[in-house]
């Protein structure tokens, strides 16, 4: 063979000195270059700690103030105004609604639009002046005992001091009226009752997001996307194909969590189980659609995981799962309204603990639906049909 006529002398390639360090250094350089190219991962390195700090630092308030309160005023009198003023001065109550009948009062509490309701009965002032020590009702939504607790604890002081400037005859040691506090839905103030339904939503958010967030990037990374795109399939079909199986998975998960909550923790399901199942399915689908949207935006699986975490974190912190929603500053509440978990928490707590029906939950149901459609629209338009 002509090639072998002049054999090339190829010596063995020797092990270099400090080989371990050289190779490690090469690896470090390579990883840095890759990290620098991966803009999203790079941004997350900064974003995640900053976001956590800001959220924990500012948004979270375990003794929430200015809680939305409805007033059912059966009479308009000086005494009633003094008492309302005193309640407001505690800084816990903020009167957002004035209602005129008991049904409206109950509905506001049931739907979670207010956390408290104050009812001043007819003939209250007269009874006070006569020294009859009449009772006024403060009803609290105690599904979240943390949110309701501090506010409820101030009621005794209010009763003592509200009317100290209005001069009345009678025993100065005894308060001139009585406040009857009524902790609705969770009279024992058990946080377990509040947390278990919340966990249904939190766990579903995490698992559902990750299932679909990886779906499109996985196809791209394994090279199967090229085949898939060369076949006659449309973006919306790809999306449904990837969402539907996990709706079933999510439904099984939800059933498990609710089942354990009822059997082990004694959490009641006071409302309709069918309604709970239907709205849970809506919530599951919304999360899957959001996860899928992420996977059409990111370039690899790592980014998909990071984006999911980035979404999951505010979902836990700003939805009212961990900390009372009403206690957060307004800007944080606006972010919270954009998270499906916020709406689902209201739904699942209302159905399980308060026995709410669909007409009490119209707003949150529509919000979930809108978030789902928004995510799906973005996903379908973002889906790259070519390899350009």
């Amino acid at each position, binding site marked *: 063979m002509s*090639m072998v006529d002049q054999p090339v002398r190829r010596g063995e390639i020797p092990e270099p000195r400090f080989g371990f360090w050289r190779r490690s250094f090469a690896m470090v350089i390579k990883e840095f270059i890759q990290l620098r190219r991966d803009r999203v991962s790079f941004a997350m390195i900064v974003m995640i700690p900053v976001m956590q700090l800001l959220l924990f630092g500012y948004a979270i308030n375990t003794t929430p103030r200015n809680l939305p309160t409805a007033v059912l005023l059966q009479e308009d009198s000086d005494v009633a105004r003094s008492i309302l003023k005193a309640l407001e001065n505690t800084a816990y109550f903020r009167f957002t609604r004035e209602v005129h009948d008991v049904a409206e009062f109950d509905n506001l509490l049931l739907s979670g639009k207010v956390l408290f309701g104050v009812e001043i009965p007819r003939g209250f002032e007269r009874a006070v002046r006569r020294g009859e020590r009449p009772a006024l009702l403060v009803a609290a939504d105690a599904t979240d005992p943390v949110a309701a607790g501090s506010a409820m604890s101030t009621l005794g002081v209010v009763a003592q001091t509200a009317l100290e400037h209005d001069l009345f005859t009678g025993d100065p040691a005894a308060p001139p009226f009585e406040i009857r506090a009524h902790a609705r839905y969770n009279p024992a103030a058990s946080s377990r009752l509040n947390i278990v339904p919340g966990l249904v939503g939190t766990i579903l958010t995490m698992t559902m997001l990750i299932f679909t967030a990886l779906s499109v990037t996985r196809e791209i990374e*394994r090279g199967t996307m090229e085949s898939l795109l*060369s*076949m006659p399939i449309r973006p919306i079909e790809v999306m449904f194909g990837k969402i539907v199986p996990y709706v079933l998975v999510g439904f099984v998960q939800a059933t498990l969590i609710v089942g354990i909550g009822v059997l082990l923790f004694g959490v009641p399901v006071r409302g309709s189980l069918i309604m709970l199942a239907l709205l849970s399915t809506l919530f599951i689908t919304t999360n899957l659609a959001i996860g899928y949207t992420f996977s059409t935006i990111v370039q690899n699986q790592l980014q998909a995981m990071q984006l999911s975490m980035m979404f999951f974190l505010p979902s836990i912190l700003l939805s009212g799962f961990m900390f009372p929603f009403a206690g957060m500053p307004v800007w944080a509440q606006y972010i919270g309204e954009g998270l499906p978990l916020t709406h689902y928490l209201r739904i699942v707590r209302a159905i399980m603990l308060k026995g709410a029906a669909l007409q009490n939950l119209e707003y949150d149901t529509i919000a979930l639906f809108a978030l789902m459609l928004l995510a799906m629209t973005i996903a379908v338009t973002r889906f790259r049909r070519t390899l350009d």
Partner: protein
Amino acid sequence: MIAAPVSAPEIAIDVHGLSKSFDGREVVHDLSMQVKRGTIYGFLGPNGSGKTTTIRMLCGLLTPDSGEGRCLGYDIRRDADKIKRQVGYMTQRFSLYQDLSVRENLEFVARLYGMRDPQGAARDMISRLGLSGREQQLAGELSGGWKQRLALGACTLPNPQLLLLDEPTAGVDPKARRDFWNEIHALAAEGLTVLVSTHYMDEAERCHEIAYIAYGYLLAHGTVEEVIAKSALSTYTVTGDQLHTLQDQLAGKPGVDMVAPFGTSLHVSGRDKAALDATIAPWRDDKGLHWQHSEPSLEDVFIELMTRSKDNFQ
């Protein structure tokens, strides 16, 4: 099979002036080609020459920056969806689902194309491919040759009119390669048009027509004989002793465009016959060497085209 539009009954692929750039680098430049129905059209060229990009533009996976054309009579820009229904595309890298079994992969494709009996179609294809007994095996666990057969099976399953095969036999053993080509010829005999890209010269010679593309430019096309004839390359085959020394001495001399060893012989080629003859004259009398003027091989032609295009375009 769905009847093709009447506009181009004889021509399966008819594209003009296709260009495509990625990040400012032009990968395909002003490419025009025509492929007749029922032929096997070989697409040759070095790595990175734009073969894959061209194939992807033909089946709608990439949008050309400029140029236009028809694939099976459908506009490649507007009718990508219709083209996709008629075209089977076998990707360079195995792109079926590794975590699905042979049967599940085929049934997936059959369902995607809306075939009436996906299970039956998959079963038929498994026996046609000779994969019976392996249908439960995961695609990722198949050997290279079987993966390639499965991929071919998957893209022919919906009965396409055009097959686009991107280096289908890369890394496959000679026996499997031969079987594969027999299958391709059988499919072409059934009326299927096949566009196949390859590096292998022996495969190029199995094609009805070939095109050579380098650095994004289509440099030659026609039948193998036409491409060789058009090259105007003079080639000498030299046998004898010390060919390696001779190769070193001739390389880069005037008139010598290419010197390449072929087994026990050396091919010396040049475009300018007179200059070549003048340069080699001193060695022609060497008793230890036997010189013979011969037809250039397809490989000679391609390597020469590639070197020339490199000078022109790079």
